């Protein structure tokens, strides 16, 4: 017998509406609200043992606390799969299902399945992390949405062959894998088919969709460099030798900032690189080849630039996802802005 647990909000948990949205997380044995339909659809081989209820506002404003409490509830529970929602088009509910789903997946490494409408902002926030099925706009779609979640969950637990996101009906998680076409059509045939459609202006489907480009416009030039405060930011992994922020050597999710206000240059043995994507010998011999503090100090003395910012910022670029890189970038920018930095020299490896 496999076991499942469902997360729902205060409304579907029958606590109340908007006035109860601050309801703190609670776990109940057995089935509450949509859990009954979920149990029905899952059949006899999978038992929904508990229902977790949390107010949308509680999750929204105290995310960390809510997640921590719920993970605490789950610590002594046995479960093979975790469901959340369906959240339809409700934004806060979708985001709540995503937050808790992602946390459960990371901590317990069980499959997490939810459902949202395509307009729910939770889709873009969490589609990479959990299975989000394409759901209806309102609770009228409850049965249909739960059926999709349950069918997939059952097949997943039974080790059935899983098809692509489009075929299964969930939002793609950004994972691309090779498959053999069920009806074998050679690449040469597919090229001719696509080409003829493209030539004749008929709709066609590329096999490699190009993601929307997230192009950052180039900044305006700094008007007077001699008065500007310049900071150095690197993805080259230069850190104090004890790597105090425990920045990962690959697929980094952490960054650090290090005080250089009293330094003329970065000394070998004091700083090093923890980047696993290149031969570190040269950088460890002279960390200034990645973070050029020595040259920046010279420019400062010459009056070419106003001032070198007191800190440099560092993370590791290799294997780091674009999403994590963007998040860290935004966090670093806030710090730079608060310090009145006018310009940044961004170095890689």
């Amino acid at each position, binding site marked *: 017998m496999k076991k499942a647990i469902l997360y729902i909000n205060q409304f579907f948990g029958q606590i109340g509406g908007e006035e109860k949205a601050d309801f703190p997380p609670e776990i109940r044995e057995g089935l509450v609200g949509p859990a009954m339909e979920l149990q029905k659809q899952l059949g006899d081989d999978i038992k929904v043992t508990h229902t977790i209820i949390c107010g949308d506002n509680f999750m929204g404003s105290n995310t960390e606390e809510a997640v921590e409490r719920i993970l605490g509830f789950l610590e002594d529970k046995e479960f093979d799969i975790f469901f959340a929602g369906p959240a339809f088009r409700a934004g806060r509910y979708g985001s709540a299902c995503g937050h808790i789903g992602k946390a459960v997946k990371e901590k317990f490494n069980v499959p997490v399945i939810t459902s949202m409408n395509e307009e729910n902002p939770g889709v873009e926030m969490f589609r990479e992390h959990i299975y989000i099925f394409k759901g209806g706009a309102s609770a009228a779609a409850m049965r249909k949405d739960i059926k999709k979640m349950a069918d997939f969950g059952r097949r997943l637990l039974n080790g059935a062959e899983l098809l692509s996101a489009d*075929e299964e009906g969930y939002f793609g998680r950004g994972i691309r894998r090779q498959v053999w076409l069920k009806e074998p059509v050679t690449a040469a045939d597919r090229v001719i088919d696509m080409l003829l459609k493209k030539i004749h202006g008929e709709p066609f489907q590329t096999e*490699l969709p190009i993601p929307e480009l997230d192009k950052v416009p180039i900044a305006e030039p700094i008007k007077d460099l001699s008065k500007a405060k310049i900071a150095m930011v690197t993805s080259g992994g230069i850190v104090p030798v004890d790597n105090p922020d425990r920045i990962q050597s690959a697929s980094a999710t952490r960054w650090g900032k290090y005080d250089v206000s009293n330094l003329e240059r970065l000394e070998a043995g004091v700083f090093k690189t923890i980047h696993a994507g290149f031969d570190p010998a040269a950088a460890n011999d002279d960390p200034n080849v990645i973070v050029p503090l020595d040259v920046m100090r010279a420019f400062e003395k010459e009056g070419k630039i106003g001032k070198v910012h007191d800190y440099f910022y560092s993370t590791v670029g290799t294997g780091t996802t674009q999403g994590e890189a963007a998040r860290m970038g935004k966090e670093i920018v806030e710090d730079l802005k608060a310090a009145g930095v006018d310009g940044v020299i961004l170095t890689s490896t």
Partner: protein
Amino acid sequence: MKLELGNFYVKDIVFGDKISYSNGILTINKEEALSVVREDEHITEADLYIVKPGDKVRLVPVKEAIEPRVRVDGGPVFPGVTGELMQAGNGRTLALKDCSVLVVGKHWGGFQDGLIDMSGEGAKYTYFSQLKNIVLVADTDEEFEKREQQKKNRALRWAGMRLAEYIGSCVKDLEPEEVESFELEPITKRTAKINDLPSVVLVLQPQSQMEELGYNDLIYGWDANRMLPTFMHPNEILDGAVISGSFMPCSSKWSTYDFQNFPMIRRLYEEHGKTLNFLGIIMSNLNVALDQKERAALFVAQMAKSLGADSAIVAEEGYGNPDADFIACIVALEDAGIKTVGLTNECTGRDGKSQPLVTLDPKADAIVSCGDVSQLIELPPMETVLGELESLARDGLAGGWAGDEILGPSVREDGSIIMENNSMFCGDQVVGWSTKTVKEF
């Protein structure tokens, strides 16, 4: 230009006293064949095997595949490579179908070499698992590259070509079982009916990224690194004008057999005069420096435009850095108003989440994807290994590794293996055979 390919369908291959072909049976005198291999004194050890679909045989490190052929009117099967230069693509060439000569290193492999399983789960990954193969397993005295990850494999590849010519010669005086005819009228001399059809060029980007000579694909014996895009007749490619190199991670590679049989070219011939007006091939290449990539794209787009191409197909032999050439070429063609479809494979990483090509552009809106080089493949032990299994782990094959903190070594003690698709021999079949695609999960 008219090429006739006279085909003999090989049903079985056996060793015997005298090389011959009769009623579908190809008989090979092993010693005589090996003496052809040993004409090059750099070959130090050599043996021949026959492997067929269903055999419990694993081949690694596989370096090359060649279709045995002979020219009826004489001349080398690979002009400028195995003999004097001559025009390829004209006249009659005879081919032994459903079989290939495979060249396998007796010990040493490299980045560009691959693996073939003749049966079991692994057999679905390579085209050559479904062919009857004459397998040359040999070693050489090329000490300078024995321990190098990149190998030219010169002696072995040339031995394979000599062997394919020698075997092909046994049908020289026989009447083929089937004759396929490939003929394109000169572009300015086509009928109004054909001229009214949308015209198409096939742009090929064979592997040419090594600055040092000896690793790249050769065109009439000329290193593709040292050329600018040029216009070719499709028959030339089908008739031995291009041979495979020894550089690209193997699943992305186009073997010489692939060039000789190029399914995308054959498919365009089928459409010619029906739905399309097939103008010919723009033979481009793949480069390292950005200005080289841009220059090649510029030449391709200009040539396509001057030829009056309404549409184009671009195929790249490689992934990673060559994606930049591939996308640049598509963008240049689209900018010239030429409707373009790309043909390639992808590298999405172990977790499948990496950007599939290193460069992307919204103008590349029509791509056929033939596979993912980074897919992990786990296969059970195989009864017989021809070559040396350890090469997959030891010698830097693109899809193998000596150790991995999570996955362990590629080659396990019991003979089972774990590898990336990267090292499946010409596995992604970007030349057009692939029935794989890549989907989002």
